[in-house]
Structure formats: C-alpha cells, structure tokens
C-alpha cells in the first residue's frame, strides 16, 4: 500500500460509514431487492413477487398462472443472465466500498460514487427493459386480448393493469442499496467541501 499524504485522507467517520456500507452491500446478495405486489378484488391479500440478486421469490407460480390468460411469458429465473452475474457485481461493489473505507483516499471515493451511480442507472434501465418486454411481448393467441392494452408494471409506484393494481417498490435489499448510495453521496459531498476548504 502506498503512503497516503494526510490532506488526501478522508475523515475516519466517513471511512467507517463506507466500510459498514460495504458489509451491508454484501448482505444485499441474499436479500430481496425489489418487490412487485398485485392486488385484485379476488386477491384482497395481494400476490407478491420478490426479486433477489440470484432468483425470483414469492408467489411466482400463481402469477404465472394468471399471466397466461393475457399471454405473458412465463417468468423463470433461468431466462435471466442477470441472476447469474448480479451477485458477483454486488460483491465487487461491496468489496470496493470496504477497500475505499480501509484505504481512505479521497479520489477513490469519487471514483466509487461515479461507478455506483453508473451501476444504479444501468440496473434501472435493465429492469425497465425487462418490465417492458414482459408487458408488451404477448402471445397473440392468448385468450384475453384487450386491443391496445399492455401489461408493463410500473418501475416504481402504482399502476392499474386490467383488474390488478400493480405496486412496484424496492424491498429491504433495495433500500440498503439506496441507503448506501445516499451515504456514499453524503461522504463524497462532505469530502469535496473539506477538499475545497483545504485548497483555499
């Protein structure tokens, strides 16, 4: 490890935050990241689907059973390359957080923030494309075809899809992810201010 000059080192509070965030990110690998709830008059208790980094959880079978009426593709974890690579990507980011926390170099904080924002954007775009494809690529021989109707669930929030109200929201893993992003941003901004003061 190269010697880091004092002005480039970050505050120990920020190092602690980043290290803890890194460990929390590693936990995200095993936690549900996103959830989609479906509420209909005949499903007053709602149907839930959880998206993990490596699998789909919840009442996927029942949802697949309902989706076949409108000709939606069967949801299967095997069909997604994401479930194979996502755990490793998250692990790399988690370790990156921890390393930055240990090394404590200010520049690395900025690099990490950039990389993390990039990952967030790519992940959300990928998720959107995923939802779009499922909602639009419908079997033309499906029993129920409502002209002009697509069944793309919302990225976040509520949307009425025929008799189902779809509700899409981050789950525990997702909130940790967002929390890590907020904390990282906070650290970066705080460090940037310190750096500005130092240069004066």
């Amino acid at each position, binding site marked *: 490890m190269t010697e880091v000059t004092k002005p480039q080192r970050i505050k120990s509070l920020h190092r602690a935050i980043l290290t803890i965030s890194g460990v929390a990110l590693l936990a995200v690998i095993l936690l549900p990241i996103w959830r989609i709830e479906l*509420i*209909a*008059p*005949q499903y*007053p*208790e709602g149907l839930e689907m959880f998206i993990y980094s490596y699998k789909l959880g919840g009442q996927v079978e029942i949802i697949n059973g309902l989706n076949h009426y409108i000709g939606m593709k069967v949801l299967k974890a095997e069909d997604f390359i994401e479930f194979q690579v996502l755990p490793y990507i998250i692990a790399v980011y988690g370790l990156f957080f921890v390393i930055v926390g240990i090394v404590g170099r200010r520049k690395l904080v900025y690099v990490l923030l950039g990389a993390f924002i990039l990952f967030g954007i790519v992940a959300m775009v990928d998720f959107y494309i995923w939802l779009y494809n499922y909602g639009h690529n419908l079997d033309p*021989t*499906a*029993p*129920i*075809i*409502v002209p002009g109707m697509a069944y793309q669930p919302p990225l*976040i*929030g*509520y949307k009425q899809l*025929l*008799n189902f*109200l779809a*509700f899409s*929201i981050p789950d525990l893993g997702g*909130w940790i992810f967002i*929390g890590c992003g*907020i904390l990282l941003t*906070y650290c970066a901004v705080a460090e940037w201010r310190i750096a500005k003061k130092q240069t004066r």
Partner: protein
Amino acid sequence: MRIKHHLIWILAAAVTSTSFYACKPKGAGGALSGDAAQKVYVAPGEYDEFYTFTSGGFSGQMTVYGLPSGRLLKQIPVFSVNAENAWGFSEETKAMLNTSHGFVPWDDLHHIESSFTDGMPDGRWMFANSNNTPRLARIDLTTFTTAEIIEIPNTGGNHCSPFTTENSEYVIAATRFSVPPDGPESDVPIDSYKENFKGHISFVSIDKESGEFDIAFQLKTPGLNFDLSSAGKGISNGWLFISCYNSEQAHTLLEVNASQNDKDFIMAINWKKAEEYFKAGRGKKQTNVRYAHNKFDKDTHTASSEIKTEVTVLDVAEFEDLAYLIPCPKSPHGADVSPTGEFIVGSGKLAALIPVFSFEKLQNAIANSDFEGERYGGIPVIKYESALHGEVQKPGLGPLHTEFDEKGNAYTSFFVSSEVVKWDLKSLEVLDRQPTYYSVGHLMVAGGNAKTPYGKYLVAYNKITKDRFLPTGPELAHSAQLFDISGDKMELLLDFPTLGEPHYAQAIPADLIKDKSVKIYDINANKHPHKTNGEAEARVVREGNIVRVYMTAIRSHLTPDVIEGIQLGDEVYFHVTNLEQDWDMPHGFAIKGANNSELLVMPGETLTLKWVPDRVGIFPYYCTDFCSALHQEMSGYVRVSPKGSNVPITYYTGEQK
C-alpha cells in the same frame, strides 16, 4: 446547525420510503349502510318475501333459500342420491336416476328456470338441467320433489338448459360439448371434429296440465359449444337466442384454441317456424338413439323408467329460415333478452364491452338479407352492425350474465373484475358498479328473466369465497351476496353461504307457492302396491328367498317390531307406510348393516328399503326422525338365522301372537 443538517437528510430519506406505502389504496372492505341489518331481518315466526330456488352445481341438487334473510329452507334432491331421505336408495326412487347408461347416482345441476305463463313465473314447476349425463328435470312446487327426469340424446353436456319459452311450451336442452350423433357411426377420430361433430338443440315440450316432458324435436347444427340461452318474449316471442362459443371448432386445448376468434355467435332460432316444419313432417326420424324417461307417480309414490329409441331431427342447414348467427365478441356466456323482448344482451366472457342487439334490427337484417359473404356451416351470418343496438363501453372485465329490473335497467356480472354493474338499457350508460366478494358468476334479479321483473333484490353468486366466512379447511361454501336494487345505487345487504356451486336461481314471490304447499299425503289416495292399510295388516310374507315386511309407523312404534324367520341368502324388503296424517310428522327407518341408506317416510307415504343380511344374529332397527316423546322407544329387532333353519316366520308388536 450541523446536526440539524444531518437530521434533515435522514428525515428526507424516511419520508420518501414511507410515502410509497402511505398512498397504497385501501383493500376491499365494502362499507355497509346503517339499515342493512333491518332490511334482511325476518323476525322469528315470520316469513321471507321470496322463495329462491338455487342450483346446487356439483352437488346435483336444488336448494331453496328465503329472501331477504338468506335462510336455507330446503335441499331438494334431483340428480344426486341423497341418503338423508333415500332419494336414489329407496326402491321407489331408484328409477328416477336411471339412464341409458344405467343408474347414474350423481350429476352437475347447472341452471334453474321457472315454468312461465305469459312470460311470468306461475309457481307450478321448476326445471333443472344436468351437465354431465345430459338430462332435464321437473320439480313439483306443491311437494318440492322431483317429479320427472328425461335424458337428452345426441348431446354431450346439457349446459344450455333448461330455459323455457314464454308460456313454457318448450324447455330447451342444448349441448355444451358437441359430439357426433348417437349410434354406431359415432366411432370417429376426435380430430375430425369439423366434419363429424354436431350440435343438437332439443325442444322438450311440456304438457299444459300434467307438465309431462316429451322431446318434440331436435335441431341439428354445426359443431359448436352452446352455453346459455333465453327465449324471446313480447315482440320477440317465437324466437330463441343461444350463445355459442368455440366457433373455431377446436377439439383440444380449448382454453387457447377456442379463444382465437374476435367474435363467436349468438344463434337466433325461429322456434315457431321449427315447430311448423316439425308438425308438417319435415323432420327425420332417428331410431338409433336410447334415452331414459323417468316419471314419479304421485298415487303409487313410485317412479318408473322407460327407455325411448326415437327422436325427430331437423337439420338447420336444410332450411332457409330457421336459424341465423349474430357475431358476438368473445366467447359469449349470457344471451339475455330484456323484459320487453326488444333487446338481446350478449356477454362475451373475454370481452371488454357488452354488445346489445335489437330484435327489430335483427328482423330488418333478415328481411334485407344483410348477411356476411360466407355462411357458417350452412347458416347465414348477419352483419354485426346490422343487428347491433349499441355497445356498453368500458363496463368492466369478463361480462358473464345479465338480468333486468322493472325500470329499464340491466345488471351484468363481471367475473374478472369481480363486480356487478348496473346500466341503462336504452342509453347504454353505466349507472353504478359494486364490487363482489369474490369473482361473481351468475347473478339473479327477482323475476329478472320475466316480462315484468319484481326487482327489489339482486343476488350475486360468487365463485370464490376466501375470507368471507370463518375458515373451514380447504373447501369453503360458495358465497352469495344480496343487494338492494330499489334505489339508484345498489346496496350490499348480506353475505350467505350456499350448498354446492350455485350457477343460477329463480326468486318467486312466496304468495305464488306457499298456500299450495302439500302438508301430508292422503293415505286413502296412496295406491302403492305394497302399502299397509293399518296396523292390523302389518305382516311378513316369504316369497321364495324374497321376504316382504309390510310395516307401519305411527307414534311411537313400528309394527311389527319383532321379526324372526329371516335366513341368510334372503332379500328383505321393508315396505314402510307412515300412518300419520298430521303435518310435519315423518318417520324414519334404519337397520344395522344396510348397504344403502335410511328411509324418511312422509305422512301417508309408503317407501321401501332393500336389506340383504350378511350374517346371523339380531339386528335392531329404529325410527331416525325424532317424532315424539317416546321416539327413543320406537325400535325393533330382526332375527337372522342360517340358510335352511327351521325358525318359522313370526312377527308381532306388543303381545306375542
């Protein structure tokens, strides 16, 4: 200052995350107005306003509820055996469940319709259909018992039934599963559906006096699935409207393959014309059919079964003016005629709108030959727009069935969106919608299929119950929901559990039925061949290995109550006559080891239980219906001895003879 800064950050994060949950809509609760309880409360000792005859679906039986209380009044056994009152177990009733396939102890009772006079329920009979082994039943509303059952030939599943014409001239029976016509040529490849499978619509005539069934004629059609139908009334009297799905003529994976066409059909049949052709001898006699016709004789309290072998068939494609097809989106379920007979409402169960057809426009289209270029299986197809009165836009999802009130409103059930929607027949505007819990199938407005509906109440028959009642394991009672429809908005009054799976019901004002209800059977009119005329004639008679016990029941003893001389290998018939002539005084009869059921014998009636003893010993028998203070004493013994034993036949009650 710094700390404040941090706190704001944390607060902002917390607010964003919780606000996603805060806007979550409220679940299905269904607020009740304050006076709902009052509206359904029928005080002890008082009567309900309506009898509601409800189909039992897979129970095979008909159930009777009171409205508005939702109280279960009776279960009438029809197509399924009922050990409780020996329906299908007693020697007298076995013949009622006879078919060309032999004794069939279960069926799927789908729909119910009243007998009508001038388009109004007359309170004489209820008709019911069975969907599995195709049959039609007539229930006598003086005794609340099944009086007649007839099997329907050339038919797969008799789903589109038992809808009747304006004066119950005919009851309709039509196949949900087209099949090749009966006979040896019906052994064909299943994938030859299009050429070999045919639909048959039976017109079963009703005798004006006795109500007796007779299959007058059948209409042969291309292979289609007939779902439901309504006869025209008023200006459309003489016509019949049948919803048809699977116009694709698929024979496998119907779920997908029968859901491809944007429009299936409503078949409009000029049944008066068909009757004319039939009477003019234009039909063909088909003699390779076999179907059972079972009648219950009121005087002998005994059913008889006859196998018939002939039916007259008219092929609709051979006549120019018998049947027409109206395109109807998508896999229609209900085809319901408005009270005036002007409008026919199609309910495509996969459609997102409700088409309403006009009888007048239909007649004009026929007069002007306003047909599509191609016929369907030889039947003219009317242009959709030519018959259309209009479409109800965005009514809901999955319309199934429509009934009407007396004020010009229609009520349609929506399975997929789980709601009942009220709309105006003329303007086709949606007026109100109420959720149902959950997934309503049919609905029923009191008199909603009559010329002048009674209105006032609507019952939604839900397919899914879930959390509406205390949980009872995996199987739950189907829930019915009563709405008050007297106001502008429909108001939910009551949930009540039902037996089996109600598909349809008929509500009849109590006054039309209650005073005609039979209290007892006149014992002097009892012509049963094994009736016992008083205790003095009670006896045991051996005829070879058949032993007949002529037994009487009266409070609080059975005569005889000591029987000896029965041997292994004997077939014992207990002919039990209830000597009571007092209202609500049935006696039961049960004997140890009987392989069938008990008997429940009404006052003045004779019923027979067959018993084949399987071992030597003493067998108690007793009255099963708590009849009096000394009911527990109402019992007896049979002694069974080995075959060839020298124990003589003896019998007595009280003193030894």
